[in-house]
């Protein structure tokens, strides 16, 4: 049995929270630059240039790209041959999130109850999803998820008869109704199949993919390409001021499905598409 120290996990998670919030991925920066080449709207170009400037300032000063430093969504892939020495895995993650949000001067955005709304002051609890996998590895990914784009997300229980056209109609309608709210240019994560809650998790997980990557299944690769083109014909543009670059990417994750159902979830990410991973 391989042992990994509690303190090591806590400290790495803390650093992931800070890095994910302050250092935007190269794929997103490239997508802004690619967007500049196709954007026709002067206001849209101006916004994309400001996002590039903002990314540079955040990187240089290690300050968050966006003041909404998000829910800390944490994805764990833990080998069955690993154990944590000196404490529990989930405690190490929660303590790491609290430490990172404090030491990185990140905003604490979590209230302890949805109706009574008192801030927990630590940005915990983190939301943790765990897969137990073969081997003795441990991979932890922190995905800070902003509230504004989360609010524009939705699950719909479609039927088999709705098919790919039904999915497209739902996705386009969801993006159209969102307009400027989720801070376009957006990344559109789509989960199809599974149960009601599974498809929502698929949609969220899909947002971890690198922008520019191609879906391994040609059927879905084609669907992603078509949806991206159609979304970018909606005219919403950067920050909803009108333009060509409404979305930077569409990601689909599909899963086996019950014969009676075809759930679909759309999880929208703002342009600050943040996630960082570490392997132990």
């Amino acid at each position, binding site marked *: 049995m391989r042992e990994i120290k509690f303190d090591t996990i806590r400290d790495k998670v803390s650093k992931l929270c800070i890095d994910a919030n302050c250092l935007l991925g190269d794929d997103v920066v490239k997508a802004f630059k690619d967007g500049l080449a196709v954007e026709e709207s002067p*206001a849209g170009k101006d916004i994309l240039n400001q996002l590039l400037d903002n990314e540079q300032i955040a990187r240089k000063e290690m*300050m*968050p790209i*966006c*003041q909404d430093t998000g829910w800390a969504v944490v994805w764990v892939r833990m080998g069955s041959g690993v154990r944590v020495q000196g404490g529990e895995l989930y405690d190490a993650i929660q303590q790491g999130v609290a430490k990172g949000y404090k030491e990185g001067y990140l905003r604490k955005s979590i209230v302890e109850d949805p109706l009574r709304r008192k801030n927990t002051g630590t940005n915990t609890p983190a939301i943790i999803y765990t897969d137990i996998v073969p081997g003795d590895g441990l991979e932890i990914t922190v995905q800070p998820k902003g509230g*504004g784009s989360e*609010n524009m997300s939705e699950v719909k229980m479609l039927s088999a008869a709705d098919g790919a056209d039904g999915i497209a109609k739902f996705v386009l309608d969801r993006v159209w109704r969102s307009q400027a709210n989720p801070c376009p240019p957006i990344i559109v994560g789509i989960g199809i199949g599974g149960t009601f809650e599974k498809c929502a998790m698929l949609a969220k997980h899909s947002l971890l993919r690198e922008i520019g990557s191609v879906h391994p299944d040609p059927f879905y690769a084609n669907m992603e390409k078509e949806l991206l083109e159609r979304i970018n014909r909606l005219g*919403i543009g950067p*920050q909803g001021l*009108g333009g060509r670059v409404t979305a930077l990417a569409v990601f689909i994750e599909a899963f086996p499905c019950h014969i009676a159902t075809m759930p679909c979830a759309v999880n929208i990410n703002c342009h600050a598409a943040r996630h960082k991973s570490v392997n132990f």
Partner: protein
Amino acid sequence: MAKKITAPLSPETVKDLRAGDSVLLSGTIYTGRDLAHKRLTDSIKAGEKLPFDLAGAVIYYVGPAPAKPGQVIGSAGPTTSYRMDTYSPLLMEKGMRGMIGKGNRAQSVLDAMKKYGAVYFAAVGGAGALIARTIKAARVIAYDDLGPEAVRELKVEDFPAIVINDMYGGDLYKDGVAKYKKE
């Protein structure tokens, strides 16, 4: 070319602004988002004194990130505005003349803007580090217990924003998107 304007806003300034105008805002503005709006509204209804003067006031929908040592404020970009729609007409009735956020407003807010003479600006969502550079002073003046949602008084210099809705019914979101819509 951006118009240079000063907050609090005079009636003349509001009258001069049109949807689509770029502005550089200087002066004093106040932060407020969901819970602060609820408390301000409760205070107005109870006839209590407000933590700041609403006459000509500009409210910026933001919950900033904490300042690092030596910083005035952390990242400070706009939050989505529709969550404040319920509260905005009453604040305009009591003197508020400007709102800064992002995203579309309810018809009730647009109607109140025409009725009282007010303007809605958008700042660039997700450009919080860039925007923070235009904030020269920040202090909490009310509701400290709300943390990031506390009301802060901000001194800004050349804060960049764009007029989305003016007091004449102009709507940049509607016009801008219509120009590029193909589907």
